[in-house]
């Protein structure tokens, strides 16, 4: 359909219970994610967000045993009917600690590993590796060993390796927790560029909203295996602030400050989600 985004991910009544566990890690998840969306998935430790991501690339139920309920479609195909290798072409996964997914002797070989295993032609592999390293700013690192790199460089190489598979979705599981704030911004900026230029769907799992909130259009909050809030970042932050802070989510400090001032009846506007809007709103009030 012209003008509307096609669906990349659609879950209906999705549930999952790990083998040996007594409760459901995911319970009646209903969500549709469009092509090219930038979605922030958050919630307290143990809320099921990692479990949901594992369903997307087939690690559940193919690798982690358990019982799956409902239906999950990725690019229109049910994950239950696909192999992990097939799904890994569609959904790329960048883990929290890049050390866990880099292993080749050089950066270039590491990035090439995925496409080499797809049985592509030499030219196609070459093209993909060059593109993925270009998009992540890792070309200059190509002959270095992954362990020689800094955390931020490793994270970008891990991202390049995933991109070289040309997935339609990338999932980043707390991608910035090992990074200093500036490097974290660089990595998130690179991810956002990929989304805008290539229409890749981006799902970022994060506790820290201050960093990712700027790029994400949509936030999905989970608790006890369920989705408890889903909407535009500004809307959800404003409407659900107390609930979110009760869940232990790291809310932007400007939003926290504003909620405290609001409680005192000193301001009335909606919560700002980044510093620039807070500066504007405060300046207007103070100029009076």
């Amino acid at each position, binding site marked *: 359909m012209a003008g509307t985004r096609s669906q990349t991910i659609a879950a209906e009544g999705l549930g999952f219970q790990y083998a040996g566990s007594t409760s459901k890690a995911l319970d009646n998840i209903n969500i549709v994610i469009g092509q090219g969306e930038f979605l922030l998935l958050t919630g*307290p*430790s*143990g809320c099921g967000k990692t479990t949901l991501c594992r369903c997307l690339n087939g690690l559940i139920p193919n690798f982690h045993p358990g019982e799956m309920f409902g239906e999950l479609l990725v690019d229109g195909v049910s994950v239950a009917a696909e192999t992990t290798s097939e799904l890994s072409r569609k959904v790329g996964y960048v883990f*929290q*600690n890049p050390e866990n997914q880099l292993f080749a002797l050089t950066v270039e070989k590491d990035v090439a590993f995925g496409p080499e295993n797809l049985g592509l032609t030499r030219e196609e592999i070459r093209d993909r590796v060059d593109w993925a390293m270009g998009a992540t700013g890792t070309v200059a690192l190509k002959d270095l060993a992954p362990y020689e790199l*800094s*955390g*931020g460089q490793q994270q970008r190489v891990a991202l390049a390796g995933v991109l070289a598979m040309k997935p339609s979705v990338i999932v980043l599981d*707390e991608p910035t*927790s*090992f*990074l*200093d*704030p*500036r*490097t974290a*911004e660089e990595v998130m900026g690179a991810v956002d560029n990929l989304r805008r230029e290539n229409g890749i769907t981006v799902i970022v799992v994060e*506790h820290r909203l*201050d960093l990712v909130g700027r790029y994400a259009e949509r936030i999905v909050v989970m608790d006890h295996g369920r989705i408890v809030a889903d909407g535009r970042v500004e809307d959800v932050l404003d409407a659900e602030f107390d609930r979110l*802070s009760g869940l*232990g*989510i*790291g*809310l*932007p*400090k*400007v939003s*926290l*400050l504003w909620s*405290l*001032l609001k409680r*005192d009846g*000193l*301001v009335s506007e909606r919560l700002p989600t980044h*510093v620039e809007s*807070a*500066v504007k709103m*405060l*300046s207007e*009030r*103070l100029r*009076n």
Partner: protein
Amino acid sequence: MKIDSGDFLAIMGENGAGKTTLAKQLNGLLRPSLGKVTVDGDDTTKKSVAQLSRKVGIVFQNPDHLLFSETVKEEVGFALKNFGFEPGVIAKQVERTLEALDLAHYADISPFLLSGGERKRVALAAVLAWEPDYLILDEPTIGQDYQQKERLRDFILQLNSQGKAVVMVTHDVEFVAECNPKVVLMSRGRIVAQGQADEVLSDGGLIEKASLVKPQMAKLFSQLGEFGLPRDVVDVHRAKVLLEEKLLEVKVRVAQSS
């Protein structure tokens, strides 16, 4: 640099600045190739890591690099056993430490069955058990959600108030802003600034030099100078107090003029 007993210090800087390398010098895991490090007057090159560790405990960034025992209880008692304490003393000390870190119910479980945040607390307990005078925490907030960070902050402040020196190595600017320790700012292997967190973290030039970013409150207050507000505000509590005052003034002014 100098660390006194009772100090609360954050060593900050970008990835690769040398923070962890500096931390490892403090208990002799690394020895200086130039210059000198002393702990309570003893040159670290003349003491064993075992001797130095009694005084300086390091909790590493990745708990999995530290944990290996079959149960949490054994893990936390391991160092005490190595230091030659009596079994009765060990049992008591382990119990106390597990209690303090809310881990008592995991005593007989394998640390590897716990979540990342819990493993991190076990690693902390394993070091705290022998009550080192100097506690070094390498990136203590990584993988912790906001509530866990709050708890960690309370715990650190409590240890510090008991006279322990606490040094945290971190690039979590927001966490440091809320704790307001002394900051040692590093960049490319050098110390580029030392001072209280609110001074250092609100200084745009220094922050730039160390490839960090200002905490949100510092970013906000750097743009509110024209209203007579200070620039060195880094934590939400102080920001709220200052803004309340200003906004009330405005309210009164508006009420009077109408």
